[in-house]
């Protein structure tokens, strides 16, 4: 899967360049996120601007990443499309994830400026 990543100060920005996070990509996604967390990244922004479908595997992979980092750091999600947002609402995941409208706000939140 195409997973763009960049650093802004100490914040890692992960930007999946895929329409779907599903059974075919979830394992790779989970693996990559896990490597970044193991490498010491403690502030991660997940930009979902390109994603318009997430299945249970995709949701599970995001949840795994969140669980892995929790207690030691933060994972913030941003730029969520309406289709994915309604999935988050339906599965009540909007209560679990920190969701911000833009990447900029997400980075500021993790840098303690928001």
């Amino acid at each position, binding site marked *: 899967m195409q997973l763009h990543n960049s650093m802004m100060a100490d914040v890692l920005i992960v930007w999946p360049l895929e329409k779907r996070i599903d059974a075919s990509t979830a394992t790779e996604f989970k693996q990559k996120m896990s490597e970044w967390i193991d490498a010491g990244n403690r502030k991660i922004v997940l930009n979902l601007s390109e994603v318009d479908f997430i299945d249970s595997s995709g949701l599970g992979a995001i*949840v795994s990443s969140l*669980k892995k980092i929790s207690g030691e750091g933060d994972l913030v999600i941003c730029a969520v499309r309406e289709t994915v947002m309604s999935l988050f609402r339906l*599965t009540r995941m909007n209560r*679990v994830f920190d969701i911000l409208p833009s990447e900029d706000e997400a980075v500021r939140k993790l840098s303690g400026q928001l």
Partner: protein
Amino acid sequence: MTQTLTEILQKHNERIARQWAVILHEEGGVHYAGRPLNELIGTTSQAGKAYFAAIVHGDFSKVDAFIERICKLRLEGGFSLSEVQKAFEIYRTLLVPILVRELTDDALLSALEGLNACLSRTIFAFSDYFLNMANAQLIEKQRKLDEDLQAAAGIQQSLLPQKLEKRPKIEALDIAWKFKPCETIGGDIFNVIRLDEDHLGFYMIDVSGHGVPPALVTFSISQTLQPHMGYTIRRRPGLSPDYDIVSPGDVLKALDSEYPWERFEKFLTIIYLIVDVRNGRLIYSNAAHPPPPLLRADGSFELLEKGGTIIGMDGILPFEEEEKPFSPGDKILLYTDGVFEFTDDKGELFGEERFHSLVRNLKGLTIEKVLDEIVLSIENFAQGAKFQDDVSLMGIEFKERTMFA
């Protein structure tokens, strides 16, 4: 002229048949190599005679009969289509040099045309026969699959509540249900389990997707929820009473760890509800299933909205529980989102709100009638279009306990 061609074929036929058989035996592939040479000489001689009749006299009856025999013998015997077709190309490579040597001009041209016509006819006939054979095999395979699917659907039906007359009598409750998988078999399942004299458990499950894979998951979970499996009733040997009814939140928590998302890679939603008929109370928890409406006897309407996320997310959200009074005349509807997530021919969604307002207006009817009305409404909306998702509905009505004199 004809005389000359006749003479050529008569003169060479036997030798060609022999050469043909030898080439087949040595270069025709594993299947021909596995046949005795004498058998091959037999068939190539027959072929030579049939082609003689066709090329010289224009009589194709022997060729057709021969083709049919070879189809049965070779294609049905497991030879590949290309093997059989190549075998007949050998005849061309043997005969053409002889014709070119012995004939000239028009005589040669007409002999070659005759030969080509015969071989085209043979090769096309093999293709047709092979295709029909493959089709017949596919149809047979499909028939078998359909039969298996029907049988599986029958087994899935057995996981639903039993017919009224066979069900253990549940005093104080009226239960009705509808089950309409959009294919033969589906990812919805629901049932009633008796937990003890006063408590009944109700569950409804929706596994994402259609067909066999989600259906197998429904089989597994239905099994897990059976009282003897320890998930819904916990044994406490030596204590009194010697069992505990597991609360809905704890049942969902156990399922959450038993069915992590990696196991089936499907969305799995479930609502689990326990009705205490003695005290007129209900308690439920919900794993991201659509919230059930509670229709009060006085006509008021509320949604049972507590719960957590889908099953398999490793306890990321707690499965909240809620307890409610359940009084005579009150009704509860459990359903999967297939009940409202479908569109009419203009692409308009039926939608959850329309569903709720439909249910609000169905007060004063028996639970059986309520379900009939819902199905009628969604069928009217869909205008005879096939449902895009499984549709499941289960209604529970609390009745006045009557004492018969």
